[in-house]
């Protein structure tokens, strides 16, 4: 019984939140990794791209609920998501035409593009603040929980409860669909294959008649969809605030690099590695250990390796350790 309780406590406080957060990071890191693989620079504006897509989705959500349209037990934001994605696609294509294309045509070095993306980051950050302000916005509606801790306790008769939020379940399901779609696209469709060819060897791809403009456009469209989805899922799970999305950039980069920049599978693995290490290292294990150990040996302290304030520090410590031992990430990434 105690063993079961320990497992439930672990699932409730570590596994479920880690899984949802990992899925959000993974979708975000997929966007970063695609830009790195195909456009060959680290996009610092990615966090603010997520914020922009989410801001538009929130506006549409408010309009929809205002008209009395909801999505039953599911959050209305999922209905608004396609509009958010569409707006982000238009924005990113516009930015590519107006800003990045110039440097691509010049064959500017990647680090210049990184600095350019810093400029785009500033502008987007400002635009998002113009659109929606700096308030904390909670836009999740519908059912809050699939199962609450109390229901679970009544159902199973265990001491520990297991609560699963609707947003957590949606995150994992949507993430799974998005990843499946992306891999199907990259491996099975003609455009996807040409994107991979372009990423592997640009010259060879151009020689074999792949249209680079089209590849770049499709990349931005996919990145817009991924960024908006990740942003909306994160916002539904926690809340929307322009600044937190900028901070998300850090763990997302960590995830992409740990997995190996430019490698989509690596981005997903990296997302979960970062999320689970953040949660496990900052979780107070007292409860779980208390169930597992005999009473006389039960720990006195919280058994927390690091205080939760060090969450960001953890993702970076992991990043640096991985870089030291495996400079190209867990899965071999692109090399420039």
């Amino acid at each position, binding site marked *: 019984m105690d063993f079961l309780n320990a497992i439930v406590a672990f699932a409730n406080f570590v596994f479920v939140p880690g899984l949802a957060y990992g899925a959000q990071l993974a979708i975000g890191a997929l966007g970063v990794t695609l830009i*790195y693989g195909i456009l060959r*620079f*680290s996009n610092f504006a990615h966090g603010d791209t997520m914020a922009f897509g989410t801001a538009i989705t929130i506006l549409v959500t408010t309009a929809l609920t205002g008209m009395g349209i909801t999505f039953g037990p599911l959050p209305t934001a999922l209905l608004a998501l396609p509009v958010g994605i569409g707006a982000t696609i238009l924005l990113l294509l516009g930015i590519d035409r107006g*800003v990045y294309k*110039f440097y691509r045509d010049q064959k500017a070095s*990647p*680090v*210049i593009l*990184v*600095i*350019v993306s*810093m*400029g*785009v*980051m*500033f*502008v*987007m*950050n*400002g*635009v998002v*603040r*113009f659109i929606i*302000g*700096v308030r904390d916005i909670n836009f999740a509606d519908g059912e809050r929980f699939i199962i609450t801790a109390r229901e679970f306790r009544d159902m199973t008769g265990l001491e520990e409860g297991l609560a699963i939020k609707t947003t957590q379940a949606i995150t994992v399901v949507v993430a799974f669909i998005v990843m499946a779609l992306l891999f199907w696209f990259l491996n099975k469709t003609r455009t996807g294959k040409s994107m991979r060819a372009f990423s592997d060897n640009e010259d060879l791809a151009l020689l074999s008649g792949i249209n680079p403009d089209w590849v770049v456009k499709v990349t931005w469209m996919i990145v817009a969809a991924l960024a908006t989805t990740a942003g909306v899922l994160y916002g539904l799970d926690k809340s929307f605030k322009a600044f937190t999305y*900028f901070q998300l950039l*850090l763990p997302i*980069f*960590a995830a992409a*690099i740990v997995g190996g*920049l430019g490698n989509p599978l690596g981005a997903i693995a990296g997302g979960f590695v970062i999320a689970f290490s953040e949660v496990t290292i900052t979780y107070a294990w007292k409860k779980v250990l208390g169930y597992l150990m005999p009473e006389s040996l039960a720990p006195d302290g919280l058994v927390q*390796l690091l*205080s939760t*304030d*060090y969450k*960001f*520090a953890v*993702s*970076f*410590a992991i*990043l*640096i350790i991985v*870089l*030291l031992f495996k*400079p190209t990430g867990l899965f071999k990434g692109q090399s*420039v």
Partner: protein
Amino acid sequence: MSTTVKDTALFGLVAVLLIGTGLIQGWNSALLILNMGLISAIMALGVNLQWGFAGLFNIGVMGFVALGGLATVLVSSEPVPEAWQAGGLRIFAGLALGAATVVAAVMAQKQLKGRVKTIVTIVILVGGFFLYRAVFDPGKEAVEAINPAVSGNLGGLNLPILLSWPVGGLLAAGAAWIIGKTALGLRSDYLAIATLGIAEIIIAVMKNEDWLARGVKNVIGLDRPVPFEIDLQQDPVFVERAASVGLDPVLASTLYTKMAYAVLFTIVLLILLWLAQKALKSPWGRMMRAIRDNETAAEAMGKDVTARHLQIFILGSAICGIAGAMMTTLDGQLTPGTYQPLRFTFLIWVMVIVGGSGNNFGAVLGGMLIWWLWVQVEPLGLGLMNILSSGLADGSAMKDWMIESAAHMRLLTMGLVLLLVLRFSPRGLIPER
């Protein structure tokens, strides 16, 4: 127009902007902008050393600035003897154990091979971590329990605060050495993200290790290298002198202290600028630029690229540390919560790019100009919105929204400035020569 004339004209423009600010918004605001502009110029000088001279992409400026700020507390505040007695030794023993663990792990990595290496390293790291926590935690708790409302930390050395400026540089240099040792072998993107991460780690430590500098409870009332306004106002000689030039003593005292800071900052800036110019024109500077422009060729010529990179990374970071200590001295308080990467890393980068990377005068100009713009965008934007919305009825939602959004103009403007300069004048206002 010769380049000297153009450069002088650009600095003249900054002077005109500051004088204009003084005439319109008052001399106190102008001096405030000047002082932070001088500090920003020093930070830009440090980043320019790394990026402009050597092509190192460091986006962890914030971390080094924060370390400089930490130095002011460690150097100038008074020690807390009770805290030292309660747990000072324990804390240092814990830290020493932590350091010994790292050294042992590195030694194991170097000496052993194969699977034994991995196992021994993991055992050392895990065992060392718990040993460190066992020694360190009680000490930390004991110290933080001492009078947490006013101290709760170990305090500092009670030395003059001016001494903290070089100490801030040393702290930042030490951190840069550790970072450089581990991260400089990485490719440019990875180095960038590693520095970004390490800056976040430094801030996280400063926010949470209360025994060190009170964390987010802040340290206020730091010493000052210049007289306090109140003392000046009570000094009959000063009051009389102020009256003789027709100034109110309160205004005169605030202007006097700000001027004193400005003089101090200008001296530091001029020294660093002179050193940076010397370095740029020396064989060392030429070697650095040669490495930046073609690493492979420089390596073939027998230059130790990694060692040279480490050298300049440490120097540039030290300058940022000095600037950080100066800024905290000017503020009179250490507030780790206010260190944001948008302000202390990315804005400094805008300064370097706009001023002209690779040119020390460019970095200084960029620092002063962009800082002026950063401060003035809000009032300018508000004025613009007031004019644009003047046709709308008072209290209308559109008008309120427009007035409110003026507050968000800053980031947008900075981004646009950066993008426009990169597009149309990629070498900056005063380009490298």
